[in-house]
């Protein structure tokens, strides 16, 4: 309810971005998945740089906790949009210049599942 603009724009944007991909059923699963090297970079980014506000363990800091129990029931795509666009009028910044849509969806999905740890 907080951001009606996103609610209205969201589905439209999604459709536009998804292009010809079928959104029904498996949803975005058909979208490009980050490759192994990208996955490593994303894990690092989330643990370290999202971690500066959300905590390295994602238990929360200045930003809200991002553990599975906190995000249960939340829509993966809506979370990905938050990551890409940020939350206006809060410290949550938009990451669109650094993260692709596929990156953001991967992060959102992994946050919901329990985010992987960095392997040295």
């Amino acid at each position: 309810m907080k951001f009606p603009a996103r609610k209205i724009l969201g589905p439209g944007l999604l459709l536009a971005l998804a292009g010809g991909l079928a959104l029904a059923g498996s949803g975005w699963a058909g979208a490009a998945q980050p490759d192994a090297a990208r996955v490593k970079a994303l894990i690092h980014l989330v643990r370290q740089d999202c971690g500066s506000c959300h905590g390295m363990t994602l238990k929360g800091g200045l930003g809200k906790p991002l553990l599975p129990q906190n995000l249960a029931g939340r829509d993966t795509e809506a979370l990905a949009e938050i990551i890409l666009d940020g939350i206006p009028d809060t410290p949550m910044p938009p990451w669109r210049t650094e993260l692709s849509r596929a990156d953001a969806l991967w992060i959102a999905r992994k946050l919901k599942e329990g985010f992987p740890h960095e392997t040295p």
Partner: protein
Amino acid sequence: MKRRDILRAGLAAPLAAALPGRASAMPMPMRGTGDLGIVIERATGSVLVIDTTQMDILGRIGGLGDLSHASAVFSRDERYAYVFGRDGGLTMLDLLEMKIARRIIQGGNSIGGAISDDGRLVAVSNYKPGGVKVFHAATLEQVADIPAKWAGGLSKTVGLADAPGRKFLFSLFEAGEIWMADFAHGNKPRVIKIGKAGKWPYDGLIAQGGRIYIAGLFGEDGMAKVDLWQEPLKVERILDGYGRGEKKLPVYKMPHLEGWTEAAGAFFFPAVGHHEVLVMDGRTWQLTGKIPVHGQPVFVMARPDGRHVWVNFAHPLNDTVQVIDTMSRKVIKTFTPGPAVLHMEFTPRGEQVWVSVRDKNQINIYDTHSLELLRTLEAKAPSGIFLTARAHKIGL
């Protein structure tokens, strides 16, 4: 002792620390601690004990929990470090025995702390449960709990700093207020809600030798200041509207105000959401300059003599460090130490600066006069660097 031996002793320390009552594998030979310090290794929950005279690592102490965003203060004898972990852990380290002396989990989620001027009280600022808790420095027994109650429940507390006369000042993030806990008359504090600071104070510091507390605001342009020499205490706004009209960039890392030393009669500090270091006159509190820099500054640290300030930057421009000359107010040097430069710490008289380069697993030591790289040391994802000389500085 050969360096390798010392390192091995350090590596053994976590084991020793896990066995209460046992001395660590190899205590240090008799020595002072005035040239020691610690480096936080945030990913592994360990710290390195460093020696700035030898420019070397003396050992590693593990078992400190989640050290993301960890910071430290020191006992006045400079033997013990108090490390404030993200997971609410408060760990007292013995730098001489190179082991954990005491450790408690005091909260759920914390963000920094402070030690009283008499060295007897250690205060911790908590996000969760929002408020400040205060402990005996010697035993880590709890002395006081100060929940940051406001209309919206408990507020996260930030910018906790000690002030002269057994006082602590801090700001409430959600509530936007500045409070003081005054322990002048014993261990039962007088808690004074000084006033409204503004939207989302994100950090605070003590300046001018303990006279001034300043809170930076994330939610609006401007800062809040309390003059502790004025009765009754009140919050005054300064720098209102600085940067207004210019488009703010998204902020990927909260700037820090620590290290905001007055240099050459002015304060140099990070702009929020702009690629600028701001300069403010130390008497009139007016903005007197904006210095364009490489990215959004995180730390703006004055060399102890005030001639230079060193600046690091927020993600994604955080591979760079710049040096500003406070006379000409120009960038005189740009270094690229490597990915994720997180912190910088000057030796007490400022001839060296230690710089942590997280993603290169490295610490760089520079000569601050020739601006040359003196040495690099290996560390695991190093972040904060804290030297024992902080023990004798008000507000650190």
